[in-house]
C-alpha cells in the first residue's frame, strides 16, 4: 500500500492505494482479507467497530457450528491455531417434537474426524484479529465510519470519517444483511421473514454432553442444544414473533425453567450462564453477487435460515471461492476488479447458495407446524432417511460441507 497526499484546500488527506478493500471486518470479511493478503495482495479492511469491542463476550454471544470443510479452510489460512477454545461435534441427533423417531448422524460412520466444531464467535473473532495482525499486507481501518463509496474508471474510492481515503481495484461487501455496499451497487435482494426469532443463551450443566448436538423440531420452530467446552452448551430457541417478547423478557428463574423443560433431564441440573440474545430470522438472497468492481460475500449476498447451521459455513465457502478466483487472477496479472474475473466467482457460488437456501427454507416450513398429515409424513420421511445409509451419508457430508465443487481451501489445500 502506498501512501500519497492529495492536496486539499483545508488539510492534507492520506490516500491509501490497495488492490482490494473489504467493507465489514466480521467473520467472513476478515477471512477473505486474510486469504487475499496472505497470497500477497494489498488489502484494506474497514469496520465501524473497534476490534477490542468485537471480542468482548457482550458483543456477540453466539457460538457457531463450523463444518469440517470450514475448519480446513481456517487451518490452511493459519487462523485455526489461534482459536483458543473449540468443541468437536461427534454426533448430531435430530428429533421431531414429541415423536420418538429421530435421525442420528455419527462421525464415526464417515471415519474422517468430527462432523464439525463448535466455536464461540468471540473466540473466532479473536483468532481472526490475531492472524490478521501477522500479515503485513493487511491493513485494518477500525473503528471508523465509511462516509462515501465513489466509482471512477479503474478504481473504487472509499472516503472515511477520519478524513482518509482508500482507492482499490475491487470493493468486497462483507457488511451483513443490511449491506450498504449491496444497496449502493444497486443490487436488489428479495426474501421474507419467517415470523420467528432465535433466542440464544449458554447453559452450564451437570452431566457431560459427549460432543452430541441436538436439533429438536418443536411446533414453534427448531430448538438446538450445541455442545461447548467445559460442561457448557449453546442453546438456540426459535420462537414465533408474537411469543418472542414474552419468552425473551421472562424473569431469570422462569426463563431457566422454560429452558429446562425443553432440554429435558439428560444433562442433569442446568443453569443459564451470562445474558440472552435475540435475532430475527429471515431468508434473503441478493439478485446478483457482483457489480462493477464490487463483489458480495456472506450475509450481504445471502442470509439463510439457521436451521441447518449453514449461514456462516456458506459465507466461508464464498470466502474460499472468492479467494481462489482472485488469487488465480492476480497471479496471471489480471485486474482483480475486472468484470470477467468477478463473473467467475458469481458463476461458482450462486447456484450452491440458492440451493441451500431453498433446502433450509423447505425444512423449516416442513417442521415448524403441527398439522397431522405433515407430521405423519415427516415422521415417515425421517424414519426412511434414517434407515437408508446413502441418503443419511449425503446429508452428513452436507453438514460437514464437503458436497459440490469445492474450493481448494475447503479441501485443506493452499490456493
Amino acid at each position: 500500500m502506498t501512501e500519497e497526499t492529495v492536496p486539499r484546500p483545508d488539510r492534507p488527506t492520506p490516500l491509501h492505494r490497495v488492490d482490494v478493500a473489504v467493507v465489514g471486518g466480521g467473520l467472513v470479511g476478515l477471512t477473505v482479507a486474510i486469504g487475499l493478503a496472505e497470497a500477497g495482495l494489498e488489502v484494506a479492511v474497514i469496520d465501524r467497530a473497534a476490534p477490542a469491542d468485537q471480542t468482548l463476550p457482550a458483543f456477540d454471544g453466539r457460538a457457531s457450528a463450523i463444518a469440517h470443510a470450514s475448519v480446513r479452510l481456517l487451518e490452511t489460512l493459519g487462523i485455526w491455531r489461534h482459536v483458543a477454545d473449540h468443541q468437536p461435534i461427534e454426533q448430531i441427533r435430530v428429533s421431531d417434537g414429541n415423536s420418538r423417531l429421530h435421525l442420528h448422524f455419527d462421525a464415526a460412520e464417515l471415519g474422517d474426524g468430527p462432523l464439525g466444531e463448535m466455536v464461540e464467535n468471540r473466540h473466532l473473532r479473536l483468532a481472526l484479529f490475531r492472524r490478521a495482525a501477522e500479515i503485513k499486507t493487511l491493513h485494518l481501518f477500525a473503528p471508523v465510519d465509511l462516509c462515501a463509496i465513489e466509482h471512477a474508471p479503474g478504481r473504487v474510492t472509499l472516503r472515511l470519517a477520519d478524513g482518509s481515503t482508500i482507492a482499490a481495484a475491487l470493493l468486497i461487501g462483507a457488511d451483513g444483511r443490511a449491506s450498504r455496499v449491496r444497496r449502493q451497487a444497486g443490487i436488489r435482494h428479495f426474501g421474507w421473514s419467517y415470523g420467528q426469532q432465535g433466542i440464544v443463551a449458554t447453559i452450564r450443566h451437570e452431566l457431560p454432553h459427549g460432543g452430541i448436538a441436538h436439533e429438536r423440531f418443536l411446533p414453534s420452530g427448531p430448538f438446538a442444544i450445541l455442545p461447548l467446552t467445559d460442561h457448557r452448551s449453546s442453546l438456540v430457541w426459535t420462537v414465533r414473533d408474537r411469543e418472542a417478547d414474552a419468552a425473551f423478557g421472562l424473569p431469570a428463574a422462569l426463563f431457566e425453567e422454560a429452558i429446562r423443560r425443553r432440554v429435558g433431564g439428560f444433562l442433569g441440573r442446568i443453569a443459564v450462564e451470562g445474558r440472552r440474545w435475540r435475532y430475527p430470522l429471515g431468508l434473503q438472497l441478493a439478485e446478483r453477487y457482483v457489480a462493477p468492481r464490487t463483489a458480495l460475500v456472506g450475509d450481504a449476498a445471502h442470509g439463510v435460515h439457521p436451521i441447518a447451521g449453514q449461514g456462516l459455513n456458506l459465507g466461508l465457502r464464498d470466502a474460499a471461492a472468492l479467494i481462489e478466483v482472485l488469487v488465480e487472477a492476480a497471479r496471471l496479472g489480471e485486474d482483480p476488479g475486472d468484470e470477467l474475473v468477478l463473473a467467475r466467482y458469481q458463476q461458482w457460488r450462486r447456484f450452491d447458495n440458492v440451493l441451500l437456501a431453498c433446502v433450509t427454507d423447505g425444512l423449516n416450513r416442513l417442521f415448524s407446524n403441527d398439522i397431522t398429515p405433515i407430521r405423519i409424513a415427516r415422521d415417515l420421511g425421517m424414519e426412511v432417511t434414517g434407515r437408508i445409509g446413502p441418503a443419511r451419508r449425503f446429508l452428513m457430508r452436507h453438514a460437514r460441507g464437503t458436497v459440490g465443487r469445492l474450493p481448494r481451501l475447503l479441501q485443506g489445500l493452499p490456493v
Partner: protein
Amino acid sequence: MAREGSNARADGASAANLDADELARFDALASRWWDPHGPARPLHKLNPARLAFIRERAISHWRRDPRSLRPLADLSALDIGCGGGLVSEPLARMGARTLGIDAGKEAIAVARAHAREAGLDEHLSYRRALSADLVAEGAHFDLVCCLELIEHVPEPTALLADARALTRPDGLFFFSTLNRSACSYAAAIVGAEYLLRWVPPGTHDWNRFVRPDEMREMLEAAGFSAIEMSGLSYDPLADRFRLSGDLSVNYIGCASPR
C-alpha cells in the same frame, strides 16, 4: 478485432511490414479494446489461458516462486502489437518493466489512458512504433510477446526475425496465432465472425493463418530453438479457453534464441 494490435511504421511507409487496410479497420474499433462484450471479446476470453502459459514458462525458465504475484520482477518485457494493452498490463502487474508497441495511433492512446486509470504507468509504457524501429535502436528484452499478430502481417518471417533480434540470448519469445485448418475456418471465420458475431466479419483472412509446422520452420529459420507449443481450446460449458493438446484452432508457444 481478434488480434493483438498491429505492427506498422507510424508514417505508414510502403516498405513497412503492415497492412494499411487492417490498420484502419483496427484503429476504428480502438475505443472498444477494453469492453469485454465488444469486438475484442475473444481476446478477453483467451487472456487467462495465454497468460497462464506465459507465467508457467517464465517461472520455470527463470526459476521463480510459483506462488508469487510478481514472478517477472526485474525482467523487461516487450509486447509487439499491444493493441489496447490486454497483455501489456498483466505483464506489468506480474512485475516486468513493460513496453507495448503498436502501429495504431488510437490503440496506443487507449492503452495509455487505461494504464493510467489502473495506476500502472510506473512500470508500463507505450509507444507508437514498429518492431523494426526497435531493432534499429538496438533494443533488447528478456521477454518478447507477439500474440495474435502474426496472422495479420504481410511478412511473418520478417516479424519473427525482428522478434529474434529483440530477444536477449537468455530470454524467451512467446507467440500465439490461429492454425490454418478446417477447424479454424469453422471456428474463427464462420463461428466467431458470422454466427456468434464476436468480431466483425472480415477481421480474419484465413489464408494468412499459420500451421504449427510452418510456424516451427519459420521460427527455426529466424534463429529460435527449444520450440514448445500448446493448444488453446474453447470449453463452451465453462465459457473459458484452456491450454490443451489440440492445436487445430488457436495455439500458443514459446521459443529461445539459438
